[in-house]
């Protein structure tokens, strides 16, 4: 387990810093291509931190903030955050872990689902300041080296997505659903996965992917 210390004014998040500029990531590719249509939007994406972030950093002395130590995907992180920061924003904007998605930002879509101490929760409604000592697992932490988590593989096998935006949340929620043992039938899986909305309507295949991964009864 490695240990890093970051503050809000830290440089580029670790997710981007390891990338060679010659091989654009999906993220920088999108940012670059978006720049044609909207430089302001692209600027936020390229930096990996939003404009909101910069404002927060500038106002860091003025707004109440707290220091939090938590473990994200096995790595201990100590961060100072504005008390208003959600776990989702901590992951995406501060730690560069952009796999968890912001859909509704109100607990109504499930795109932000992560595991906190092994249980699935909506990271958009979780204040980071409350997570001192917690263990977080995001989509970036599911695979072991080059071996995908069985549910990740199942989503590929079953072709369980189209646009992919809800997929990280679906997979983390599916991991929780399987751990909780709510996989007795397709109907049970549907009910216990209902906190994750898929606007592409891939529900049938998502249920199959969860079924494929669940232990046989």
């Amino acid at each position, binding site marked *: 387990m490695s240990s890093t210390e970051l503050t809000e004014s830290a440089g580029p998040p670790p997710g981007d810093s390891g990338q060679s500029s010659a091989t654009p990531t999906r993220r920088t590719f999108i940012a670059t291509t978006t720049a044609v249509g909207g430089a302001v939007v692209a600027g936020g994406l390229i930096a990996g931190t939003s404009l909101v972030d910069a404002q927060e950093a500038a106002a860091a002395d003025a*707004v*109440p903030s*707290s220091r939090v130590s938590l473990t994200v995907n096995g790595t201990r992180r100590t961060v100072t955050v*504005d*008390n*208003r920061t*959600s776990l989702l924003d901590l992951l995406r904007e501060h730690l560069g872990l952009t796999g968890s998605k912001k859909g509704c*930002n*109100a*607990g109504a879509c*499930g795109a932000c*689902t992560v595991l906190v101490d092994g*249980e*699935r*929760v*909506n990271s958009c*409604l*979780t*204040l980071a*300041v*409350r997570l*001192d000592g917690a263990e977080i697992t995001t989509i970036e932490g599911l695979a072991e080296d080059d071996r995908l988590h069985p549910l990740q593989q199942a989503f590929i096998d079953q072709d369980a997505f189209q646009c992919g935006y809800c997929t990280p949340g679906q997979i983390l*929620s599916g991991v*929780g*659903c399987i751990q*909780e043992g*709510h996989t007795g039938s397709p109907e049970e899986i*549907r*009910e*216990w*996965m*209902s*906190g*994750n909305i898929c606007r592409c309507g891939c529900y049938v295949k998502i249920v199959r992917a969860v079924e494929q991964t669940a232990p046989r009864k």
Partner: protein
Amino acid sequence: MHPFSFTKVSDTREALDAGRRGGRYIAGGTTLVDLMRETVERPETLVDITGLPLREVSVTERGGLRVGALVRMAEAATHPKVRTLYPVISQALELSASAQLRNMATIGGNIMQRTRCTYFRDVTAACNKREPGSGCAARVGFNRAHAILGTSDQCVATHPSDVAVAFAALDATVHLLGPEGERHVPFLDFLLKPGSTPHREQALQRGELITAVEIPAHPRPLKSGYLKVRDRQSYEFALTSAAVALHVRGGVIREAKAAAGGVGTVPWKLSTVERHLIGERPSEALWAEAARHAADGAHPLEHNGFKVELLRRTVERQLRIVGGAK
């Protein structure tokens, strides 16, 4: 979201001190954080109470059930005592929200949750609950999901909880701890109808803390269950719902408990329905006759008149499910 200071407390004395100074308690946070983001809620200080020792489910000496305020919805729903003694509570919980939210939200927070009225959540709309005296946009607006019972000319917002409907049916008691000590408030007195003060939603004094919800002992065997009717089958608030518990001995209904959700400004106790059931023999005709009184006193609005008949049918169906068809 407005800035706020944050403190985490480790014992109830510390919590009450912080509460008395105006701190706002936060447990699961699933309603509060959402409303803070909409700037409907603007607490200056959040007091994290999740470290307090209020996470027990226990059977009381008299055979009732005491559920700690910080027991999470998922934990309460799957607790063996809750499942066996009061299926209506487990069902109401598992038909609420989503698995993720049930892992976060607590029993105390659930009964404290605020209405889903869209005008309440929109800070640009008139809302007497959010801003006393500003008016009620829902009365003349899109009010399909709003209340038909317990309304006033000031407010027509529903209470959104499912498990609170089960608590109301079962004559639960809310345990409170304040600077003056402990007190117990009947569930039906704890949640307040809007009247002329819709911004006052609970019978809580400043700094008071919910410590538990207690369900009194009921005669056994007790059959119970919860039925929820909504626009989509899962992960949605109720249009109508019914919590029913029946004790039948010697072929006669000796005790009947019923309440409705999705229709009232507070969980709606169906006292008239209960009275029509007690002393009678279960039959199809009885369920229909009792359920005809489920919407007594209703005042439908422009868009929610359908709830009157839907409520009667919801209650009738749930009486049949719990009581059996004879």
